[in-house]
């Protein structure tokens, strides 16, 4: 049984060590680098699989390292942690393959892949964190490791994007730190306990607890791109495609949303938070972000910026699901964590393919691109339909559960928000599909690279197809035992609500 105590640490190290070694490799040793990357990803996948199986059978995985005299670093693999870890591990493997293909001839790849693995280490750390201070540690590490990725291109625009990214995230980190220390000085412990550990704090502290909640959610809101803090996300689109894919689908944005889930369920406990009256404003904020994100996406001509704004609105579904204090809605919110990840990464891969193969960046240039690159556009269509919430694809299920959850606690207005946002999603995705499939392609693409027999290099084509099929399967086979939906139900039963 002692093995179980070291697996979480091994999972974190399985991307940290290759990352550090990759930093030292020169550009010429690309074979060694690719091997290290793939080996790290596969090893992590294996370990996560083992833990998935273990947790399914009620085993306990936890690593504890001493940090401060009475506070220590805890890596614990609960069902919720594993949910996010498996998502990030799977998508990391896919994104690595994609990145290898994407950055074929660009310079400084060792630096890129080094920070890439650091970023995933931080994401996995965020997922596996067992108490708030470990979460804070990996949360800040995530900011540090993603900054060089954004500034990777080395242009002035990239630098400005990096600066704005930092102003937001450092501010967020400061709020989170302040809230955490205050909580610690108030309560004395920071361990994540299912159903929260703040319910027995006596009443006269409640106003302070509300302020702490606002601070924590403010800090996490920056990364979860809630309304006032999402200025950095569209600007960060200047980064190369695999980075924006990783940032928006898997790492940064999800860490924020995951953090909100942790704070609401494992720190405050959902019923205590509801009784404090803080979940309602969070729900309104999330709803406002959903509408705001979709509205702004309507007017963007640059494809990646439109996807960025759509991410802003999609991630707030998770926050919305969490904020409606109902078991079904929380299942919807949690399962959307994976669904949105899988769908959004497909869209970004396709955007990257279009940019890399045809030099197409604007939506206005996308006429008839379906003819030239049918498979990529097929994947894009699946992703787009998932975003709209059309049934066969995974997006439908999470919207379905959030809707049901809202009705269960008779918050009717949430249905309107869902309907409105699906309409807006359709309004900004369908024109793209229409232009891609049904318009005639221009005589000459901006700058076309010929990749021989296939529409684009295999390393660029396979990942979007994999993730698109994942999205489809997650939708169609939603009731399979190890499907995201089932696991979300398991989480809800074990961690959130007393059955």
């Amino acid at each position, binding site marked *: 049984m002692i093995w179980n105590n070291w697996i979480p640490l091994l999972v974190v190290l399985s991307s940290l060590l290759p990352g550090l070694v990759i930093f030292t490799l020169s550009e010429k040793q690309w074979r060694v680098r690719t091997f290290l990357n793939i080996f790290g990803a596969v090893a992590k996948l294996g370990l996560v699989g083992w833990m998935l199986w273990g947790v399914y059978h009620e085993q306990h995985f936890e690593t504890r390292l001493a940090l401060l005299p009475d506070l220590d670093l805890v890596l614990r693999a609960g069902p919720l942690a594993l949910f996010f870890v498996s998502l990030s591990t799977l998508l990391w493997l896919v994104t690595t393959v994609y990145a290898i293909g994407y950055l074929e001839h660009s310079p400084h790849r060792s630096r890129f892949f080094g920070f890439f693995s650091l970023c995933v280490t931080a994401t996995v750390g965020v997922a596996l964190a067992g108490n708030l201070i470990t979460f804070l540690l990996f949360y800040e590490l995530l900011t540090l490791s993603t900054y060089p990725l954004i500034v990777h291109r080395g242009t002035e625009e990239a630098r400005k994007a990096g600066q704005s990214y930092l102003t937001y995230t450092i501010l967020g980190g400061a709020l989170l730190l302040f809230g955490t220390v205050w909580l610690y000085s108030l309560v004395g412990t920071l361990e994540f306990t299912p159903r929260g550990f703040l319910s027995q704090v006596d009443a006269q502290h409640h106003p302070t607890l509300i302020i702490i909640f606002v601070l924590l959610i403010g800090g996490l809101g920056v990364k979860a791109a809630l309304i006032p803090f999402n200025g950095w996300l569209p600007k960060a689109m200047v980064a190369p495609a695999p980075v924006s894919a990783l940032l928006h689908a898997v790492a940064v944005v999800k860490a924020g949303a995951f953090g909100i889930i942790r704070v609401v369920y494992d720190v405050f406990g959902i019923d205590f938070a509801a009784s404090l009256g803080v979940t309602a404003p969070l729900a309104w904020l999330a709803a406002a972000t959903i509408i705001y994100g979709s509205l702004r996406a*309507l*007017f963007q001509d640059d494809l990646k910026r439109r996807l960025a704004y759509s991410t802003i609105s999609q991630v707030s579904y998770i926050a919305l699901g969490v904020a409606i204090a109902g078991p079904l809605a929380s299942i919807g919110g949690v399962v959307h964590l994976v669904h949105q990840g899988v769908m959004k990464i497909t869209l970004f891969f396709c955007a990257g393919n279009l940019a890399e193969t045809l030099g197409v960046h604007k939506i206005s240039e996308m006429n008839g691109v379906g*003819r030239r690159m*049918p498979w990529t556009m097929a994947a894009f269509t699946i992703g787009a*339909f998932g975003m*709209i*919430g*059309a*049934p*066969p694809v995974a997006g*439908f*299920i999470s*919207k*379905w559960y959030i*809707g*049901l959850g809202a*009705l*269960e606690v008779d918050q009717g207005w949430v*249905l309107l928000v869902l*309907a409105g946002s*699906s*309409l807006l999603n*359709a309004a900004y995705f*369908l024109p793209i599909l*229409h232009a891609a*499939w*049904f318009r005639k392609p221009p005589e000459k693409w901006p700058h076309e690279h010929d990749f021989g027999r296939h529409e684009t290099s295999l390393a660029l084509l396979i990942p979007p197809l994999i993730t698109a099929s994942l999205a489809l399967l997650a*939708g*169609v*086979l*939603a*009731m*399979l035992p190890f*499907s995201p939906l089932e696991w979300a139900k398991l989480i809800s039963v074990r961690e959130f609500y007393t059955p």
Partner: protein
Amino acid sequence: MIAYLPPVLLILTVIWPLLLAIPLLNRYIQNAPMLALLPAVCLALYPGVIDYNVEWILLGSGIELNGNNRWILLVSVMIWASSALIDKSHGEGFTHSSNSSFYFLAMGGQLAAILSTDLIGFFSAASLMGYAFYGFLNSSIEQQYRRYWNLYLVFLVVADLALFEAMIMAVSATEITRFNVLRWIISDTQNAQIYVWMTVTGFALKAGIWPAHRWIIAAYTGTPLSVKILLFGVPLMTALFGLLKWLPNWDNSLSIPGSVIMLWGLMTAIYALIKLLQNRQRVLIPLWLIFLVSGVFLSVIGAGFVVTQDWSDYKSYFFISLSLGGFSITALIIYLTIGQNQQHLSAPFSSAGQTEDTTQAQQRENKVLTLLSANYLVTRLQYLQVAAFQLVDVTRQRAVNQLNKIMDEPGWTVAITFFMLFILIIVSLSL
């Protein structure tokens, strides 16, 4: 082994066309549509009732063959086959062109919808069919009608939303999505009314009932014969079929919506009759007939609510009448269009005389659109943004100069005076 044949047959009818939708397959197989329809035909002819429920597909949906949907299945298979045959003979060969995958997707969607046993299964199959049919028709429709044909896409999206709301209402009240169980359980009137409104609007939009009918006219006039045949058989019939399956038959508390639906159906029928009388070209007759049939069908359903005697025993007749209606219209279309050896069709509203005023109408409409449209809003927004930025810049610059003035370092004298003051304060504390 035989015992397993029917369920396999059932699954094949749905899966087989979807598989053929993949371009690689249908490019190499001769007369793929016929092959795709084969399992459906055998299924239609199979005597008994088969149902096959799968727990893990799409939140627990399933497919079944029963008395009612057998007729509809038969008619739709017949329509798909005839369109394929005509297409092969007339040589457009859309089955081999790039949008053939849409053709098969639409076919698979419709078959799955007909056979599906629960709300979510029907909803997803119907929307797959809708979008595929839109894609399929879009490539074969003439350019000038395309603007109206795009309306179909908008209506599809809105309809899907409405149906989504309706489904959520039903499921949140009863937690059960099976059709046969659904009828009896929604009791709370307030929910039921919303459910009915949503379902009716959803399927009305999909079926192109009166206010949302422009796209049918455009589709009918702008497409070749083989596509024209599919027009009633695929989108409209499935929509009406869906209406039948989704609508519950309760007591008379739903009389108000019922009467509204009846009126709505009658209005469409009257509209169709007027058009029929004014009509000069014979070939357009089936178009108005389509409206007539759907209008009548809708009003009968509305009446069903108002009259309120036991609804279920008439149910089978509805299905049969719907399939008969579909069959007769397609036959008429084939007869008339082939008979008229394809003389040029002029759309009722795009006759030569009216060309110049339509363009003016379009311009007026565009102007109105731009005025109201978002980018006017956006330009105002950007103007404000630029002004705001300038303001911020000026104040920031002034603040920086101010800052520089006070921030330059205190020289030696000032610092050492502070030093003396510091000692002085502490020493004075001793008093």
